[in-house]
């Protein structure tokens, strides 16, 4: 076996924490090798060492059998190692070609045409389907990622590292990316895939190195290892994929949408004559591919976006024209899609963040004066109950928490305020298995208390796992509402593509 990359007995210590402890990673020529671990397990540190961003305290790195010392990303590039970062590093008003040749412009005269030709050839060879003359800001996120891949290929990378590549992609784009990875390997490249999504590993990887809390747990052959086995190796205990829940005890109507019409940012109707009701004691999941009006719909319900027509009623009150605070007071909880932009004030403490919706009324404050003692106690209660881990407890800044803990904080804030309707948008995006399991159980518990839950997710698994009914959305229209027990992923998948159920097919 020829190992294209070997990282032997790597140790890296940060003040107060051992990020990598005696980790060995061996990647074979022409394989897709996954690195699996929870957030903070040490995956990124390991890759940063390989990419020259950190220097290992102990251990050595061999590339094609030769020991190397990588001091910077440039060294890594020279060795044929390329990395597709989670956050793309592209100049938005440059064309694809300009972005790719950036830093490799060559001599004084820019040979745009030559570069463009080479890029086109590469794109065709690996099935990337990229037009080199498009401007970055005009292309989709999935395409931008492929530009990042092209950038590596243009620099003759032989080993490509993908850092959480699917976090920003739609299901279709994920499929495309998997195919691209297979194409890369077929052409003799090697791929390292960093992820905590087990399905993706199962679908595409050959072998998988599993890391937990900086320690190497094992290397498994993906084909012969079950998903639940890998999950329990990653988390350190058996993981429950199916959410346990009792049949729904449905009560009165909590949310009632009638002929809702909402403009999107392009000033065209993003939500078209949308009518839906959500009852107490049930979870309704909105299934659909990203960008089909879900964001506009949720913003309209929560009062963050004006509507063009229709009515919204919450627990019998007409809230069509109510402001956000009024809606919250009637009983609306909202776990927002973008937790860093909407959900939290990064520069503020956890206790401020926990109180941000309710600080203005008793018992949080009296006569305009904040009750610091109560704020602290309340926040302590939330972070204890929801196991939010942080360096300085309630005095930590929200920005210092890991993504999973940030999300737990938001879920805690929304659930503890006990709203009649809880809207959860992508509640587990980018989280690891343990956190997902926990947040799912909280949503179900909220339902079982007799409240309504409206769930938006781009992952069908999640929709099917949690929902009692599924509303399928396509191009801003409600295609159909189905009972989860009476449908399957295939049918919903078709509806997500806009295919309506045939008359009488039931």
């Amino acid at each position, binding site marked *: 076996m020829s190992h294209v990359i070997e990282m032997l007995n790597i140790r890296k210590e940060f003040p107060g924490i051992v990020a990598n402890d005696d980790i060995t990673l061996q990647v074979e020529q022409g394989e897709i090798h996954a690195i699996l671990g929870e957030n903070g397990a040490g995956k990124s540190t390991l890759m940063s060492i390989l990419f020259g961003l950190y220097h290992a305290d102990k251990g050595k790195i061999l590339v094609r059998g030769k020991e190397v010392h990588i001091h910077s990303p440039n060294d890594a590039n020279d060795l044929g190692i390329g990395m597709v970062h989670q956050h793309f590093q592209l100049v938005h008003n440059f064309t694809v070609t300009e972005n790719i040749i950036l830093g490799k412009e060559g001599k004084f005269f820019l040979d745009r045409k030559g570069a463009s030709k080479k890029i086109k050839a590469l794109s065709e060879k690996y099935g990337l389907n990229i037009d080199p003359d498009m401007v970055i800001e005009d292309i989709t996120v999935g395409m931008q990622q492929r530009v990042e891949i092209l950038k590596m290929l243009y620099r003759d990378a032989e080993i490509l590292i993908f850092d959480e590549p699917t976090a920003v992609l739609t299901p279709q784009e994920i499929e495309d990316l998997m195919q691209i990875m297979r194409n890369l390997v077929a052409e003799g490249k090697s791929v390292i895939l960093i992820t905590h999504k087990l399905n993706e590993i199962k679908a595409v990887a050959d072998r998988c190195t599993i890391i937990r809390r900086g320690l190497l747990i094992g290397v498994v052959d993906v084909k012969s290892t079950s998903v639940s086995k890998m999950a329990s190796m990653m988390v350190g205990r058996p993981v429950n994929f199916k959410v346990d829940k009792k049949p729904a005890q449905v009560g009165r109507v909590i949310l009632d949408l009638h002929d809702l019409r909402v403009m999107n940012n392009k000033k065209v109707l993003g939500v078209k004559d949308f009518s839906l009701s959500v009852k107490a004691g049930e979870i309704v999941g909105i299934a659909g591919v990203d960008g089909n009006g879900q964001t506009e719909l949720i913003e309209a319900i929560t009062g963050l976006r004006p509507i063009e027509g229709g009515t919204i009623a919450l627990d019998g009150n007409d809230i069509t024209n109510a*402001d956000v*605070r009024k809606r919250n007071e009637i009983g609306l909880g909202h776990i927002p899609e973008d937790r860093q932009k*909407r*959900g939290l*004030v990064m*520069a*503020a403490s956890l206790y401020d963040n926990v109180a*941000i919706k309710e600080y203005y009324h008793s018992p949080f404050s009296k006569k*305009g004066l904040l009750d610091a003692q109560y704020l602290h106690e309340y926040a302590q209660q939330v972070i204890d109950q929801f196991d939010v881990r942080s360096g300085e407890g309630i*005095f930590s800044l929200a920005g210092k928490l890991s993504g999973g803990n940030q999300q737990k904080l938001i879920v805690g804030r929304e659930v503890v305020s006990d709203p009649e309707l809880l809207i959860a948008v992508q509640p587990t995006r980018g989280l690891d298995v343990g956190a997902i399991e926990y947040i799912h159980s909280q949503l179900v518990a909220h339902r079982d208390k007799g409240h309504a839950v409206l769930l938006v997710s781009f992952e069908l698994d999640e929709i099917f796992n949690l929902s009692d009914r599924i509303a399928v959305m396509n191009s801003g229209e409600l295609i159909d509402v189905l009972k989860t027990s009476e449908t399957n992923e295939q049918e919903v998948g078709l509806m997500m593509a806009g295919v309506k159920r045939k008359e009488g097919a039931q």
Partner: protein
Amino acid sequence: MKPMKKREKQSNAFLVAASATVLGLLAGAILMASIGSNPFTGFWYLFRGGLMNIERIGNTLATATTLMLVGLSVAFAYKTGLFNIGASGQMLIGGLCATLVAHKVFLPRPLFLVVLIGAALLGGALWGIIPGFLKAKFNVHEVVASIMMNWIAYWSIYYFIPAYLKGPSLETESASIAVSQSMRSPWLTKLFNGSYMNLAFFVAIAAVLIIKFILDKTTLGFGLKAVGSNRFCAEYAGIKVNRNVIISMMIAGGLAGLAGLSFYTGYSRNMQIGVMPAQGFDGIAVSLLGGNTPLGVLISSLFFGILQSGKGFMNAMTSVPPEIADTIIAVIIYFTATSVLFKRFWDAVLKRQMNKAKRKAEMPETAQKKEDQ
């Protein structure tokens, strides 16, 4: 555990400001040396000029008063994510309103002071609320709007003073306000040996405390800070972003109006036309060095007050030009603006020390373990 953490953070902000200040002074020293003067005598006279006797201390405090109020204005707006570059105009209008009251309103002293202070506060607040409103309603950037407001104030003064408040001899400045109608107070003047020290100093101290209280303890401050740190989250949480923008600019304007009160009816007792008060911009530096916090502003305004009032004395006693003091201020601002570097530096130093202490604490243990084995 909690008080420890807090102290650590504060000292960090203080270290950053102190590092910037030391480097600024160092740069001043190099400049003095390069023009052939002795930096030690230069600084000696600079600080003596600000502090050598009770009268000069009074002048330093009076200078600092104006800077403190402007600094507070800038810092307060900053907490709501706004940049108040319009303090000069707000000072002018606040000063004009106060000057009008001083000339035209006659009341018993305590009541008169309340009206005088109120007039300045309202004038400044009016000048602040307009850019705030434009920002909230039409999304006009507050920097553009408040610079415009500065010039509207400037030319309004140009018209108003000669037309309504003309002095007996000069066309270019208003008639002097009687001491009994100003913020000066005979006992203070006496206490500080005839300096410019006036009652506005206490107004400024009170303002610092009130603003600190509003920001730390009230729901109003909570909402303002939320809007300033993340307006999207504030909007999501049901906080009215636009209303907070207007309130913030109104209060910031009022504070700058009080700065006008301290300068035009306290430090001096008349208003000149054709002068845009430089304190409106110096206040940005005060706020920056003070870490945009009320107490920080208090300290940094006193420091800038010393530099400002000492530079004349330094010039008189040595060959060092007074511009050196301005250069020092400029360099300090430069270093404060790049404070991230200091923060990293001090974080690294503190961390290293902590690690060392930890290792020392662990060392005997491990040594003992080895012995046991």
